């Protein structure tokens, strides 16, 4: 999947991937997609929950080897 920005969260554990995503989202424009790369499995549940709370859109979760890629779209300011 194509993304406008990438956030490397490999080696980071809960809550850091979510904290960093929220921080990074401030730089994004509405409509842009962020790719979050992580290896903490918690993100597969955490990111959809974060999206539900914030109203942004979780597009896709890919897992390859131990690496998880999550695509999140900024839907509002």
């Amino acid at each position, binding site marked *: 999947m194509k993304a406008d920005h990438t956030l490397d969260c490999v080696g980071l*554990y809960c809550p850091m991937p*979510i*904290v960093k995503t929220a*921080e990074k989202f401030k730089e994004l424009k509405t409509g842009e997609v962020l790719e979050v790369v992580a290896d903490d499995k918690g993100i597969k549940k955490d990111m959809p929950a974060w999206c539900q*709370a914030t109203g942004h859109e979780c597009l896709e979760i890919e897992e390859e080897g131990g690496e998880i890629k999550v695509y999140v779209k900024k839907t509002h300011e």
Partner: protein
Amino acid sequence: MAEKEKLTIVVFSGDLDRALAAFILATTGASMGMEVSMFFTFWGLNIIKKNRGGIKSKGLMRKMLNFMNRGGSQRLKLSKFNMFGLGTWMMKRLMKEMNYPSIDDFITMAHQMGVKLVACTTTCGIMGIPEDAFRSEVESLAGAAYFLGEARDARVALFI
């Protein structure tokens, strides 16, 4: 989104593990767009005391208490397996090895994210802890009514 959801946490415990849980939830809540406040009372006050310098209190008993119960984020112990400090040392080391934030890092992070840190005035009074014993991130001192005021319209209220 309409009005922000609120999360408020009473931090009663001064244990390292419990403090960690409290700050994980506080920073995550802030990341999720919630308005977060943390109310520190009793042993929880140890978490937000400055790490350096003495605590100037009046009276022998309070002086003794603040000497024995010095506090500071770097002096917190695990609630289990402290083993005279060995367990705590090992846990801190493991956290460092995996680049996990320390309590100090969490306090800075929470503060930057707009989490309100509030110290309980009554416990400060009983224990003789002056306001300047607390780190600069602590926003204010308040009482039970303040906490309940926050908790009344909070979506989530926790006691740790």
